[in-house]
């Protein structure tokens, strides 16, 4: 397979939008999505000898990009340990979502429940997935890195704990907080449109 500068330019023309769009939805930031796409093209260009033409070019580039995204989420970005982070944010989390005057029970209104009652297929509709990407973007990066690992490779708790060097109990607290923040954001989106 001969890949020269000419082919490279035609890849950029043909696949940049597709790859960029995918990366953007995964990381939620324009600059970071651009970096990932750029790294993908670079790796593809360097590894062009290994492309044997059995998969389509698009599939091949996507496979490279997906690996870049996995690495992106694995990069430890913040130096504080997870347990310090969880301790420091515990109080504000509990004050936001639990009613201290009522034995610490949920303080949210039960009737705010639009998306779990939504029609089949709504959760994978363009509209809902747009809300989801907005809400993911707003999540604290510390929580998001762990939470997203759960879905990006459909990994079990044990592996994610090893990767991020966290205890199992901290892991479940992170998942719990992430889901709590996410559903609150999603309910708001649903109500506000």
């Amino acid at each position: 397979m001969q890949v020269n500068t000419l082919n490279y330019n035609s890849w950029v023309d043909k696949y940049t939008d597709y790859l960029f769009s995918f990366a953007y939805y995964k990381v939620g930031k324009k600059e970071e999505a651009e970096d990932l796409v750029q790294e993908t093209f670079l790796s593809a260009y360097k590894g062009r000898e290994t492309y044997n033409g059995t998969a389509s070019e698009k599939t091949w580039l996507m496979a490279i990009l997906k690996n870049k995204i996995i690495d992106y989420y694995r990069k430890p970005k913040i130096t504080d340990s997870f347990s310090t982070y969880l301790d420091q944010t515990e109080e504000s989390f509990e004050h936001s979502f639990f009613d201290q005057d009522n034995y610490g029970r949920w303080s949210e209104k039960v009737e705010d429940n639009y998306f779990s009652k939504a029609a089949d297929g709504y959760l994978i509709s363009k509209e809902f997935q747009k809300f989801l990407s907005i809400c993911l973007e707003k999540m604290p990066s510390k929580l998001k890195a762990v939470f997203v690992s759960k879905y990006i490779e459909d990994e079990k708790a044990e592996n994610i704990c090893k990767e991020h060097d966290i205890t199992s109990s901290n892991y479940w607290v992170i998942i719990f907080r992430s889901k709590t923040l996410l559903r609150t954001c999603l309910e708001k989106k649903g109500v506000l449109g």
Partner: protein
Amino acid sequence: MGYFSRILNNCNETCILSLRSKEEKLSLKQKIEMKIHLRFCTCCQNFEKQSDKIDESMKAFFENVDIKPPIKASDDFKARMKEQFK
């Protein structure tokens, strides 16, 4: 606080147990306490339902990019990409 009062008011713990129960085997004690709480707490029942829906939508989010509105990369970015191989 008495035993039952504690069981009936620990929303926080119950939700975490409910999340864990999807992947791990809980002890009998944990399982019973979770079930009792859930039986009486609409907030936690609600959380459980929403949690499942979040799983469903997050899976779709990472598996299927075609259902999302496409976003175009800027022309400036494309030009820069071509530039790096000149």
